[in-house]
């Protein structure tokens, strides 16, 4: 695993090979004291098929985040989410890093689904975007809808939001490329 520059790399954990949903950060960004202090792998993000456990008639499956390199536009700080799109019943898309208020928005538990911050992941290679985000999860569902989740560990996303002012490279299961 090469050292990274202003990026993070997520890859499958050999010790958790039976569970494709577990991904680890092997090496964090090298330009900040908080992240270079990371020693050894630690659970960072969960990557899994989405499913709707209570859907009558079965389960809704979606593909997990595609392997590859992405860019998080940490230089874009979107206004905090405060409205609901009435097609998706969640806040409209935001293409930088967006704070999520802890209180419900129009009765929707957005914070439970996304945590305090969500960051849009733009794929570096052409061929389509899944609209994936790097987001939290505080409602205990344990799955995503094709995104990466930091669960309740906000250290990485807080660092991006508070200390990074340029695009951040993110690689999923592949060697990182500097944006």
């Amino acid at each position, binding site marked *: 695993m090469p050292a990274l520059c202003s990026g993070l790399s997520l890859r499958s954990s050999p010790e958790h090979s039976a569970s494709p949903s577990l991904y680890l950060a092997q090496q964090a960004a090298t330009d900040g004291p908080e992240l270079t202090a990371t020693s050894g792998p630690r659970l960072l993000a969960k990557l899994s098929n989405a499913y709707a456990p209570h*859907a*009558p008639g079965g389960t809704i499956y979606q593909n997990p985040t595609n392997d590859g390199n992405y860019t998080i536009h940490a230089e*874009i700080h979107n206004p905090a989410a405060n409205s609901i799109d009435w097609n*998706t019943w969640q806040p409209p898309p935001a293409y930088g890093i967006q704070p999520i208020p802890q209180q419900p928005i129009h009765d*929707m538990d957005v914070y439970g689904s996304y945590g305090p911050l969500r960051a*849009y992941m733009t794929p570096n290679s052409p061929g389509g975007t899944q609209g994936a985000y790097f987001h939290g999860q505080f409602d205990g569902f344990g799955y995503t809808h094709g995104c990466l989740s930091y669960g309740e560990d906000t250290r990485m996303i807080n660092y991006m939001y508070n200390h990074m002012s340029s695009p951040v490279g993110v690689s999923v299961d592949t060697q990182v490329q500097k944006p």
Partner: protein
Amino acid sequence: MRTITLFALMTFGCAALAQQVKVPNGAWMPVNAKWEHVPPEVSPKLLTTSTRVLYFQPDGKMVVIGCVVNREPGSFITISAGDGQTVAAGDWHEEQGKIVARSRLVFRTVTRIGEELPGPWNRDVLTIKDGQLLLDGVRYRRVPGLDKSASEMVPRPAATQP
């Protein structure tokens, strides 16, 4: 002879077309969707719209998906997985030249506090005209490029996970 052949081709061609529009298999989205550009520094070509996608299967299952659709002209079009969805699932059949569909909300990416799913059944009658579906005053056009991502929203038994 040529006239007869041409007439036969036109007749069978029209019959085939009529057959196609009677069975609305696949994904449909509003004709008048309003596409917006994302910030150019994020993606110079990406267009996005918040909309409702209808997806019909030949086996009579259907879903209504509230979602964001992403597209790059000439490249791809897909439902944005990460921007969340609502999914109403149900079934459809043809009745006197119209499509009768019933569905109920079975899934939201973001939970609505206090809500229990599935929701109540809704019954809709769709008409087909000029190759377009009409539902609640909104015209929908067939968009084959959405078939794959829309089909993923159909609830399936666990054993048939794709």
